[in-house]
């Protein structure tokens, strides 16, 4: 059983919803990432989604675009990201880490080489925004061979016919994109998400994480009632941006406060 599966089962047994924060690796600088990951865990993260910087993040909104630009100023590479995970694992063996990014850095490394390296440093899953199941030849086998989970996106526009492929080829969980838009959009509608997640429940056996546009405790509270995991990204990354020129302490303070807000809201939803 993978670390992600174990985590979801343990949470399910306690009647809890997972909180999965996203940060871009190397933002605001390469030295910050590992300590920010530990901070996220100490403030209630059940898993961590670590963004791999890519020069052309075409599904991301302005907040994450700028985070990627900050990281790329330091030339943060996929190898660097794996190194952060390795160091993180020296102190944390339990929190699953999901890499989220775009295909080209993985293509440049080679599917097999990347999968082996990711597995060896303690990565648990990979989510590649521009790699749909249809194109996953070789990629899927390499991740599978290394024992890594394959997280796929499902969106409000995903037709029934594609859900079977996601359910069959994906593992760990399914990432439901809660709105039509880029990361950090503000058009989240709980009623629409409820309807869609109900549709997915009948088709997917995997846990469902909900992300995109969850900006505050209120939204997290609503989404926790619908999904198995709540994924928050831009709301945290915008705080890194706001404090990027301060000491890391200021970034940690702001992130910690926001995480506490999300955690409390999700716990409140779980307690109902």
């Amino acid at each position, binding site marked *: 059983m993978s670390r992600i599966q174990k985590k979801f089962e343990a949470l399910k047994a306690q009647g809890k919803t997972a909180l999965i924060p996203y940060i871009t690796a190397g933002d605001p600088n390469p030295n910050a990432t590992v300590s920010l990951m530990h901070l996220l865990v100490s403030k209630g993260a059940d898993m961590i989604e670590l963004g791999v*910087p*890519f*020069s*052309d*993040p*075409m*599904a*991301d*909104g*302005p907040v994450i*675009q700028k985070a990627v*630009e900050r990281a*790329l100023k330091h*030339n943060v*590479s*996929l*190898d660097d990201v794996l190194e952060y995970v390795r160091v993180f694992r020296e102190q944390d063996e339990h929190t699953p880490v999901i890499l989220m990014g*775009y*295909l*080209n*850095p*993985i*293509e*440049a*490394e080679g599917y097999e080489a990347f999968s082996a390296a990711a597995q060896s440093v303690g990565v648990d899953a990979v989510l590649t*925004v*521009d*790699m*749909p199941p*249809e*194109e996953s030849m070789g990629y899927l086998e390499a991740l599978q061979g290394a024992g890594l989970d394959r997280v*796929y*996106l*499902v*969106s*409000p*526009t*995903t*037709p029934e016919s*594609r859900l079977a492929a996601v359910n069959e080829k994906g593992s760990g969980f399914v990432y439901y*994109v809660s709105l*039509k*838009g*880029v990361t950090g*959009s503000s058009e989240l509608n709980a009623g629409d998400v409820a309807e869609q997640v109900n549709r997915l429940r009948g088709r997917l056996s995997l846990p469902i994480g909900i992300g995109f546009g969850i900006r505050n405790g209120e939204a997290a509270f609503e989404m926790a009632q619908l999904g198995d995991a709540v994924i928050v990204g831009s709301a945290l990354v915008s705080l890194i941006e706001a404090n990027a020129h301060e000491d890391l302490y200021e970034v940690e303070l702001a992130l910690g406060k926001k995480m506490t807000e999300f955690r409390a809201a999700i716990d409140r939803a779980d307690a109902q």
Partner: protein
Amino acid sequence: MTVDFSKFPNEHGHFGPYGGIFAPETLMAALEQLNQEYQSLKNDSAFLSELSDDLRDYVGRPTPLYYAQRWSESLGGAKIYLKREDLNHTGAHKVNNTIGQALLAKRLGKTRIIAETGAGQHGVASATVAARLGLECVVYMGADDVVRQAPNVARMKMLGAKVVAVESGTRTLKDALNEAMRDWVTNVDDTFYIIGTVAGPHPYPAMVRDFQAVIGREARQQVLEKEGKLPDALIACVGGGSNAIGLFHEFLPDEGVAIYGVEAAGHGLETGQHAAPLCAGTPGVLHGNRTYLMQDKNGQIIGTHSISAGLDYPGVGPEHAWLKDIGRANYVAIDDEEALQGFRDLTKYEGIIPALETSHAIAYATKLAPTMDKDQVIIVNLSGRGDKDMNTIAQIEGFEF
């Protein structure tokens, strides 16, 4: 030749290892819908006749195949013919494609059109068809390109389009494409994305090629009428590669026709400051397809440089990537200085002011023609006119504009 070029791409949009659909999930359904609609319309006689009427009466096709006698004689080699895409309405080949995609948008019931543009020719061609059909139009353009192609920005605004200057990344065509994709992801229900080149996720590379292939179909017939034989060589500039594939495609099965795609060598291939992924790049995935890219060893896309905004792009259409690998087409590069000389030459000898993109093809012809015999024939795709480049030229030549 054993390759049946009409069989490419396959149903998944693959040209050998290139092409495909590497798109965010939110767009997958829209791409599938577009593909189905396009596959059913591309052989539909009513659609094709509407398209051909528009191309004749609105665009002004067929465009002439002009023998550039004085220029050819100055080079002392092959006879050079120019396929005059600069004479199309809006001044470049781009409109061949926007007319076609606009008809599709109408059939799909979309009320809003978006487009990316580099030189602004595709933006103008999109704004033009949007005006004609009464559709809302938003054009994304890199902030640097907004400055260097100002005349086209003014034209788009006159035509009622909203021009969004993209400040992210390298502020050029690739960033405009990213931003257009983000818009499409957000507004996928009512919006049709008119991609201007033979790149992007399937079906765009095949669809844009099919709309541009009219160039080669006409040219083949015209050269047979004028010369009684096929040409010995074809030359076209390659950014994303739509005018090039448009000219080349009809001739792919004709083994005796040598094919040259001309990329932008910018300050020179050896400087790294260029836009020549086929000549000096490696395969990767960007903007929805696998193709040759300008990238570093970590798979990050690197900044490009070309004097021409329309060639200033780190990728290239996947069909070109495949034609390179199988050896059917040759890809070469022309630097900024050579392109400027091509620009001056054609203006001087023929009274035709070419676009700076096109000037790359012109410059390569000045190298190739003298190596050929006087009875041999070259067709150069004169993909666009140079009015839009007057700001750039004025700065370089030091005159007031």
